[in-house]
């Protein structure tokens, strides 16, 4: 048997599963995205309606707002995680008492299911009764009410996401920092570079692949966040945390507007791919082009 045939045989189970659970549902969504199909419409049957759903999307204020909100959430959450994760990784590169214990504790959020993270934060932040709003009011007279003030709710979802996922960034950065060669740093020190210059001209360029991979992973996760936010705020107050995943859920399930919801999913997928490609082109392809020059 040829080696390539054996390879395909080993891959076959994975490919079959991927096809059934990945490709087929995608094709189904693709087809439904071009139909009008609401099971509680006057005519509940699925009807082809061309690009009408996509035309509606362009003028759908709620969809566009959700999209903008999601991008804003992704930007603040991922940026915070990268910065905080890098500083924590630098901290763990040094020796200090209780380092092992602290490192273990700090990774615990990673093993908690998102729905449980949302529930925990909800218990802590529930207006009037949660310990955080209670003590903020008792000690500082500050009125923290994430079900009433839109900015507080948005910030709470960002902080929750940062709390949950920064450990992943830290671990990635830690692995990357630990694998960096010593020579460039020694050379830079001999050349008289200060700490900032070493960071900017040596550490950062060497870490760029790891940072980029982490940004991709976290950004894609942030753009499809649903469960944590669903538990914490339910998308509210108003539409303050109705990120695109939650918005699509509301359209597809409570409203049973399968056609329109599918078109939203397709557009969101397309935008995510485009955004990642742009990021890749901006940070990696440009460097490759420079090398060619």
């Amino acid at each position, binding site marked *: 048997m040829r080696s390539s045939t054996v390879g395909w045989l080993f891959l076959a189970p994975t490919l079959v599963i991927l096809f059934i659970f990945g490709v087929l549902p995608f094709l189904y969504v693709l087809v439904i995205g071009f139909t009008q199909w609401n099971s*509680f419409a006057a005519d509940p049957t699925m009807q082809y309606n061309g690009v009408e759903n996509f035309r509606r999307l362009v003028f759908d204020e709620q969809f566009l707002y959700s999209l903008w909100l999601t991008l804003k959430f992704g930007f603040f959450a991922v940026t915070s995680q990268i910065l905080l994760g890098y500083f924590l990784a630098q901290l763990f590169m040094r020796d200090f008492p209780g380092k092992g214990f602290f490192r273990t504790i700090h990774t615990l959020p990673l093993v908690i299911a998102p729905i449980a993270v949302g529930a925990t934060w909800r218990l802590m932040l529930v207006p009037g009764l949660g310990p955080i*709003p209670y003590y903020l009011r008792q000690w500082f007279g500050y009125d923290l009410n994430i079900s*009433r003030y839109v900015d507080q709710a948005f910030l709470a979802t960002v902080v929750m996401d940062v709390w949950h996922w920064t450990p992943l960034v830290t671990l990635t950065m830690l692995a990357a920092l630990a694998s960096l060669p010593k020579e460039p740093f020694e050379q830079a020190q001999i050349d008289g570079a200060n700490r900032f210059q070493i960071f900017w001209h040596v550490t950062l360029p060497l870490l760029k692949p790891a940072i980029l991979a982490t940004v991709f992973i976290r950004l894609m996760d942030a753009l499809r966040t649903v469960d944590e936010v669903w538990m914490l705020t339910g998308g509210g107050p108003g539409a303050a945390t109705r990120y695109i995943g939650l918005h699509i859920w509301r359209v597809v399930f409570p409203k049973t507007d399968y056609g329109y919801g599918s078109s939203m999913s397709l557009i969101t997928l397309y935008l995510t791919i485009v955004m990642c490609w742009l990021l890749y082109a901006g940070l990696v392809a440009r460097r490759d082009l420079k090398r060619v020059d």
Partner: protein
Amino acid sequence: MKHFNIPGRSLVATVFVAALMTSTAPAFADFWSDAAKDLQGATIRGISESTPPSNYVKDVLAPQFTEKTGITVEFEATSWDQMYDKAIKDMEANTGIYDFVYIEQDIIYSYLARDFLVNLTDMLAENESLKSPDFDATKFTTFIDNFKNADGDIFGVPMEAFVKVYLYRKDLFEDPAVQAAYKEKTGADLKPATTHAEYRQIAQFFTEHAQANGMEMWGTTVQASSGHPASVYEFIESVLPTYGVYNWGIDTTTFAASVENGGKMNSDVAKEALAWWVGNLEFAPPESTSSTWDEVAATFAAGRAAQGLVYGENAAWIATNPDKSTVVGKVGVALPPVAEGVMDQAKSGEGYIGYYDGGAFGIPHSSKNKEAALLFLQYIGEESVQADWALAGSRIVHQATYADPKIVEQDAKVDGYYTLMKDQGPLFRGAPPFPFHNQAREAMAPFIYQAITGELQPAEALDKAAAAVDAELKNLGYRK
């Protein structure tokens, strides 16, 4: 001697009779074991919202039924959102996961429009051997009419029904010191509110009174979750009717919502109602903007509000269960406050003053165990199980339950809630017969949420909500 002989003879006689009964048992087997003899070992699955009445079915009635029939009942009591999500998907995809589903009164019209449910009247007529002699549809209250089609055929067996009432802290309202303080502050006597102005005045008084006395209490509950449909329901089903705006402000013949199209959703009266309701937040606990029906009940039970509109399913445990409630024996029950003329309209049948909520269990066409499910639905619909179920869940669906001694006794403890439901129930009404219930609600919801957070003024919110509902119903093909 004689003294001891009589019991001895009785004992012998008793043993003899018991032995005789045992030996003849197969000939006198009860209906359930006879009817289920071909279904033993079957498993039926059902889904419902996790509420006191549903949990009673899961914990008490389902095991009883299994014992009598040998049919296992797997009962899933989950959140309201998940319940709909799963049930609708199952019926739509025809997967047959569930053999009976909870049908809330307000969704029955959507289910009937999609022909999701089995006609129970026909099924019972076609299956004489499955017809329980103790199941009698005429014994139910008129609430069962919500689950009938135009021909009077039944599609659901009622399992719960209650009215959303005005609960107030009777101990505080009857406290002479509080009454004197109220009189001094407002010039009026402290009594349960009958108008919106009185309600607001009481709410303001108790909020200020609590603050002045270092109490963690506010003047009113508000079911104003800013991201959950519960808030939309409180406004459209419990507040709008008290202002005389019925059927959510949607015209039931043209399905128009906005005033310019003939609806009333953004009428001046509706805007006044929303402004009143949102204004109550100033005198409500901080958790109000994250409160659904459950949290409102919890808030009242925790003694954090002096009054509020609370779903009746919670009335009994709030008033009687010291394990869950801090206001046991301190709860008063009354009708909601209404605008001038609304009570007369309700009495004449032209209008209503609040929400008559409840639900039934129905069998989806997709069920794979329809016969077993039919038996279960009849079992929970029998008169014999109703009283204890009512005690556990403040729900009454049988006329006779009102007169049961256990209910009469509990009625006194809940300040006559059951009497109010029996006598004043006709003043309340269920949701309008819209086949687009969820769709219309979801269309207006974002704007109600934004009115709660203050992002939109009430008038602006209702203008946008009405326009959104009009657009949605046009898109769905219900409006030209």
